[in-house]
Each structure stands twice: as C-alpha cells, then as structure tokens.
C-alpha cells in the first residue's frame, strides 16, 4: 500500500517527498545571471564616472542621459547571461553553495559600484 496523502499530513509524510527532484541548474543560471547583471550596472556606473567619453556614449537618450545606457546595457547583459548560462549549465550538477557565493560577491561588487562615495573616487576632472 502506497503512502496516503491526507489533508492533515505534513509534507514529509506525503507522496511529494517521494517525487523525483528537479535539477538545480536552471536556478543556478538565474542566480548567476542576476549577479552578473548587477555587477555590470556597478561597473558601468563607476566607469562612466571615470571617463567623460564613456559617460557621453552611454547617453542613449538625451532626456534620460547616461542612466539610459547604463540600465539598458545592464539589463541586456543580464538577459544574455541568463540565456548563455542556461545553455552552458544545462544538465550539470552544480554546487548550490558555490552559486550563492559567486552571486553574493557579484551583487556586493555591483552595489559597491553604484554607491556614490565609491564611484566618485574615480571621477574624471
């Protein structure tokens, strides 16, 4: 007789606990791509501060200014990274801990790059 799923059963007592697991790699791709997108935003913010030429180039929209290029490129990098990582990691057994660390480091660096007191240290004259 197989396990019976009743309304009061906790999850560990139900067939769900016995169902096959879903692989981690799609989540790994989503995490790493998100970290990469944030990192690109931070790098672009700092580089734009360091170089007037880059800042001008990033002004894809006159009314929005350099923020338009920084955000469009970051979102584009995030999407491309997500697709690329989904293809590269497909079917692989990946360490969740490594994924969390890499994502955390990229997000932290990206945050640092968007912090004015940091990126203003690189300001061009």
């Amino acid at each position: 007789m197989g396990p019976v799923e009743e309304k009061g059963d906790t999850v560990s007592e139900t067939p769900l606990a016995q169902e096959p697991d879903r692989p981690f790699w799609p989540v790994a791709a989503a995490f790493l791509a998100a970290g990469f997108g944030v990192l690109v935003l931070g790098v672009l913010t700092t580089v734009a501060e360091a170089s007037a030429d880059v800042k001008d180039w990033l002004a894809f929209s006159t009314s929005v200014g350099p923020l338009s290029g920084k955000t469009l490129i970051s979102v584009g990098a995030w999407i491309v990274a997500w697709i690329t990582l989904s293809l590269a990691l497909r079917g692989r057994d990946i360490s969740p801990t490594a994924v969390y660390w890499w994502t955390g480091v990229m997000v932290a660096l990206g945050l640092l790059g968007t912090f004015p007191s940091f990126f203003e240290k690189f300001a061009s004259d």
Partner: protein
Amino acid sequence: MHLTDRETWTVIHGMVLGAAFLLAFAGGAAGLYSLRPELVTAEGVRERTRRLVVGTWAMAAVAWATVITGTWIVYPWYRSSAADSPRSFLLANPDTKSWHTFGMEWKEHIAWIAPILATAVAFSVAYYGKHLIKHQGVRKALLVMFVAAFATAGIAGIFGAFINKVAPIR
C-alpha cells in the same frame, strides 16, 4: 484638488507602485519564510505555492514598472537643465546639494537592482513550484535575495520620497 500630469506620474511611480511593491513583498516574504516541512501540510503546500508564485511575480512586475516609469518618465523632468528643475534647485544650494550628489545619484542606480533580483526569485519559485519545500537551502537563498531586492528598492524609495519633499516635480 488637482494634480498636474507630472505630479500624477510621480504619484504613480512612488506611491501607487510603491504600495503595491510593499504588499507583494510582505506576502512573498511571509510565504518564503514559512515554507517549511514542519509547518505546512500537503494541502497547505499547494495553496501557499500558488500564492507564493503570484506574489513573487507580482513583486518583480511592480519593480520593473517602478524603475521604467521612474527612469523614462519622471527622471527626465527631474534632471532637466531648466533653472526650476528639481536637480537645478538642489544643486544651487550647498545645503541641498547632497540630496542630488548622494541621494539621487545612489537612488537612480540602486533601484535597478531590485527588479533583476526579484525576477530571479520569481523564476526560481515558479520553477520549483510545490517542490521548493524540499529544497530548504534554495528557499533560504531565495529569501535572502528577496530581502536584498526589497532593501535596494527601499533605499531608492526612501531617497525618492525625501528628494520629492525637498524639491518636488511640478
């Protein structure tokens, strides 16, 4: 009682979408926090998972709507070179200059981190669905990322509210 077009968009960007964001975050965070095998019955997992998927996608969608309206509709009015624009007003006075050089400079960038992180969370929750409860490590990581998305949006939102108080868009 009257709001100009610009004031209306500022209200939509900051208050309407901001309130929806807070609501979606509260629901999503509570759902993620309590999605533990010892707390939830099999019946409860299905119900909570549906709510969690809707809540996390709602937060991601609202975060995108907030940064898009903020950057492409409201921000150009703020940074206009006109002498009466909020940016010009803030920079003209040493006492208010930091609201732009620190507050707005941080807000306009950090806000874009929120939708990226929130989308990764929403995707992962939808991907695992009812199986997420079996992956407690992933659940904890998602909770951290979800809170990080909220924190970045929160910083942007707080600065936005203060800046609009000091130099309103009219």
